[in-house]
């Protein structure tokens, strides 16, 4: 069986390599993509949208539909993770630690109520003493990562980056908080309700901008039609529309990344994990 698998993989790989031989060379000026399409974008993007980063202009404006449905796909991924993994049953075994003495309490009955306050703290089953160096470094680092993520979102028009990357970086900073402290810290600060609302809100912002353009009398996602609503230079309005769309994508991606992580790492219970 393993032999057959190897043969099939090698055959498919060989076919793919054979297929790539017909592709134009990297940077070939005579290739179909470089002869008509790229020229149009390079010549017209600056006057039509006033966005210096061509990639962002193509992704968020000329190919706005693609990016909208990509965001919807990310949202669906988060939704599927939630529906498949979320487990609302309370956990049977729970552990608490008496902080001043270090005595551990083990509750086997799920109905027993135990309030974790200053004296008692909730702890995971496979708990390891949290390292002070890791905690301190992460606590200092997380705000800077978040500022950088916001910068990436806001400067998507001018430099590499955009909503997707910025959202992922922001989500990773929250995941870093869960890893360096524990999952309870994250779940307490960034609640499930908050994440769900934000995941839906991001897609709503994107679609809302598109519908807004329709209401103003243009086509769907035609940001130029939003000009009367915003006090700005009408030539710059498409760049502003793209910024709004990027913010929507960033919010949705940030929320979905955290939802996926929390659901995977705690088996859907949102209580203990990495």
């Amino acid at each position: 069986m393993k032999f057959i698998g190897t043969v099939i993989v090698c055959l498919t790989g060989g076919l793919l390599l054979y297929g790539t031989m017909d592709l134009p060379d990297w940077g070939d000026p005579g290739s179909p993509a470089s002869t008509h399409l790229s020229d149009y974008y390079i010549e017209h993007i600056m006057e039509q949208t006033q966005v210096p980063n061509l990639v962002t202009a193509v992704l968020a404006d000329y190919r706005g539909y693609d990016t909208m449905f990509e965001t919807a796909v990310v949202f669906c991924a988060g939704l599927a993770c939630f529906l498949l993994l979320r487990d609302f049953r309370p956990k049977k075994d729970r552990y608490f630690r008496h902080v001043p003495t270090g005595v551990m309490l083990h509750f086997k009955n799920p109905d027993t109520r135990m309030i974790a306050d200053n004296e008692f703290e909730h702890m995971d089953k496979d708990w390891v003493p949290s390292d002070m160096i890791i905690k301190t470094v992460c606590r200092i680092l997380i705000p800077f990562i978040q500022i950088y993520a916001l910068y990436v979102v806001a400067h998507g028009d001018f430099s590499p980056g955009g909503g997707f990357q910025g959202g992922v970086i922001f989500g990773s900073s929250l995941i870093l908080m869960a890893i360096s402290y524990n999952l309870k810290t994250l779940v307490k600060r960034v609640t499930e309700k908050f994440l769900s609302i934000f995941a839906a809100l991001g897609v709503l912002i994107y679609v809302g901008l598109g519908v807004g353009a329709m209401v103003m009398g243009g086509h769907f996602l035609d940001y130029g039609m939003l000009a009367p609503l915003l006090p700005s230079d009408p030539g710059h309005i498409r760049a502003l529309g793209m910024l709004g769309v990027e913010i929507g994508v960033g919010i949705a991606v940030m929320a979905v990344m955290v939802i996926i992580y929390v659901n995977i790492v705690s088996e859907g219970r949102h209580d203990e994990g990495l």
Partner: protein
Amino acid sequence: MLWPIDLIVLTFVIFCAIAAITVRDLLGTAILFSAYSFLMCLLWAVMGAVDVAFTEASVGAGVSTVFFVAAVFRTSRRTKD
């Protein structure tokens, strides 16, 4: 262009890809995938596709590795085959 960099990075990419499917430790596979993504990110950057390189670095080398590690944490660390 910088063909020695291209060649060296491409060798490492292939090495990482083969190692990722042969290693039996799944945590090691996750880390190898992360290294693979990062080397691909270098390749994209050398080719001038900075946006793609950025996405590869943040999604491929960053978040997906964390998801893999989380999944390994909740399942088993050894492969059956």
